[in-house]
């Protein structure tokens, strides 16, 4: 669906070593994603999760150092992906 206002964005970012996507960091990621209108997904270990669903994100089982693939679609997709790419390295 490509209306003039829709965007697609794909970025990669690595979880810090020693920081798995456990409940607290996953909550931060979900809160950040929820602030955008875009649909945002995060992939790791061959699975793709809705970045706005804590349970989905937790089920990725992403360990520290894992490469996360972020894909977003919608009017603020680029901003959403950019925001998450900046956030993930700061997770602790």
């Amino acid at each position: 669906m490509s209306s003039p206002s829709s965007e697609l964005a794909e970025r990669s970012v690595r979880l810090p070593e020693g920081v798995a996507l456990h409940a607290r960091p996953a909550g931060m990621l979900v809160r950040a994603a929820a602030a955008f209108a875009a649909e945002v997904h995060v992939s790791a270990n061959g699975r793709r999760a809705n970045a706005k669903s804590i349970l989905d994100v937790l089920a990725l089982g992403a360990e520290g150092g894992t490469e996360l693939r972020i894909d977003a679609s919608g009017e603020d997709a680029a901003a959403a992906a950019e925001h998450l790419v900046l956030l993930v390295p700061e997770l602790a």
Partner: protein
Amino acid sequence: MSDRNGHVGLILVSHSAKLAEGLADLLSQVAGPTVPIVTAAGAVDGSLGTNGGAVLEAMQRAAADGGAVVLVDLGSSILAVRAALAELSDEELARVALADAPLVEGGMSAAVAASTGCTLEEAVRAAEEARVVAKL
């Protein structure tokens, strides 16, 4: 509708005060300080059981604030919640809703949704999503 004051909160209803308090600690750490999470758990004397009065009081307080999703463990907790809901005014009923969801995963999902500033309906939906999202 969560426009009165603050965020939608959670009311955890369980037979065990320890279970509910431990879960409240966990959810608070993930959702942050903006989401009110209260427990109505254990019998009046502190033993295992349910306390309808405590459930009703928690609901009335939440209704006067940002509203709340109610999560229950099982069995007579559900009966206690239904009995308390029957005591609420229509206005209060619009601000308190029982979620058909597992306590831990439903609570986690609702608490994080509430921390984003969502509506009561969205928080209930987030809790009930826990029934279909695979754990592993």
